[in-house]
């Protein structure tokens, strides 16, 4: 079956879904519970013209970016330390194993308690998840830097610092990138977690607050925008990887 026919089939399937949704919404007749596609489009128009959705998107995106950068850097550093220094790994791997099981949403209450309801709390919750995901994969890469690369460094007589940035760091890059790629999705999970409980702005809050007034059309808009922004970030990341890093680091 050709790619073209596949695409056609996928498009058809998506269209029939929208039609079925419209029919279902019509027959249920509870626009407050199940809005029709048209209502959702109307809501989107309204939220666009009021600027509300753009503002919320920018707010949420800003949180993701800051949290992601914080967590990404911390994850690479932690991963390399745990991966390269056996004593530290043996001592702290159990602690890390427990930490990595904590759902981000569970952290929201304490983080809010300690850091208030400001941006810092959201950054930390997002950074936490990114940190976990990036650490896990960086650790594998750092632990498994091929012995023969380190031996090459030994022959040449590189010192510890030079070995770190000329051999270990670049060897770890492909692994860290896997973690960073996965972390994009998790950052959005954490964003939603932080915004559903304890936020007064952002996409999560639109979803949460619209619920109180049974404005499901706004909720659906919120969900779709959230999914769309998440998907775009994912795609942008992969593009960046392919354009800038793929040749040197054989990823993607």
């Amino acid at each position, binding site marked *: 079956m050709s790619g073209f026919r596949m695409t056609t089939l996928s498009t058809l399937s998506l269209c029939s879904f929208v039609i079925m949704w419209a029919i279902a919404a019509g027959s249920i007749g509870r626009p*407050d*519970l199940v809005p029709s596609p048209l209502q959702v489009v109307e809501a989107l128009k309204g939220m666009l013209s009021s600027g509300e959705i753009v503002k919320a998107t920018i707010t949420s995106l800003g949180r993701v970016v800051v949290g992601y950068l914080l967590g990404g850097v911390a994850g690479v550093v932690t991963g390399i330390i745990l991966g390269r220094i056996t004593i530290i790994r043996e001592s702290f791997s159990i602690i890390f194993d427990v930490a990595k099981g904590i759902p981000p949403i569970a952290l929201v*209450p304490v983080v*809010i*308690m*300690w*850091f*208030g*309801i*400001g941006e810092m709390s959201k950054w930390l919750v997002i950074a936490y998840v990114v940190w976990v995901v990036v650490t896990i994969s960086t650790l594998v890469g750092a632990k498994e830097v091929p012995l023969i690369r380190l031996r090459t460094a030994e022959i040449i007589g590189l010192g510890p610092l030079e070995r770190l940035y000329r051999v270990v760091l670049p060897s770890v890059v492909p692994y860290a990138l896997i973690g960073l790629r996965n972390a994009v999705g998790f950052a959005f999970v954490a964003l939603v977690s932080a915004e559903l*409980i*304890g936020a*007064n702005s952002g996409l999560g809050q639109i979803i949460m*607050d619209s*619920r*109180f007034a*049974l404005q499901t059309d706004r909720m659906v808009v919120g969900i779709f925008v959230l999914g769309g922004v998440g998907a775009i970030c994912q795609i942008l990341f992969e593009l960046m990887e392919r354009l800038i890093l793929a040749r040197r680091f054989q990823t993607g």
Partner: protein
Amino acid sequence: EPVRIFAGSSPTFAPVFVADQQGYFKEEGLEAVVRPFPSGAEAIEGFRSGAADFLVAADVPLSYLLTGGDVVMVAQFSQSSHFMVVVGPKEKMEAADIKGKKIGLVSKSAGEYMLSRFLDSKGLTLNDVERINLAPFDQISALVQGDVYAVSSWKPFDQKMVQLSRGEMIPAAWNGQVGFDIYSGIVAKRELLEKQPETVEKVVRALLKATKYLEKSGGVEANAADLAAYLKAPPADVQSVLETNKWDMHVSKDFLDGMKSVGQFLESQKLIAAPIDWQKAFDWTALKAVDASLVQ
């Protein structure tokens, strides 16, 4: 089919919990499921989605439900002049201090009304401050961490704020002080009232028993202990609320006036689209059927 009753989790709505705990619903032959929510505002949403038959909350959140005409208030049962509190920095709650500041509150709760009345007493209006919607427990963090200047909330959260700020934050005003009492009540779907008036009567009768129990039983301390166990909350917190509450199901003129000013407030702030039709908002038939003397 059990009767589902949603409520804010504050001890001010104690009669519902007492009725459940003491088995008064059962005595009426009802199987009742009572579910407490962190705030009345949140309970509204559960009720709206059709998951509940009755909703118990303070007068302000209830008023939001009364705009549609499909929901009626069938009884009220508590009155307090010390329930709502504005908490802020010690000795820094004058008009000049507050103006332009962020104030935390649960939007669509009585906190909004309380803030309005408090600002009024300082010669300010709601437009002079920035309102930040926060769940009650987030208000505590926000205030202590300095994310908001003050909060408009209800008991017992004020005590936690005082404790956690090590006394930096204290109650600046309470509702009696700024000139209003707060009531709580129960609403039902109009459809239910019309189709199964006996169910509504049974619920009201159970509540009446509960208010009487609260007045006559072993005192505030004992009540607080029972209720704390029910709500899984610290007894001291519960007691601090019960101490200032009055339980009574007589429909009084003060209550009717209070509801009307809440309605006017919501309308003037454009928080509701249309004015509440008070003729249709109350329906005391069940209350009358239970005890005609409660309604004059």
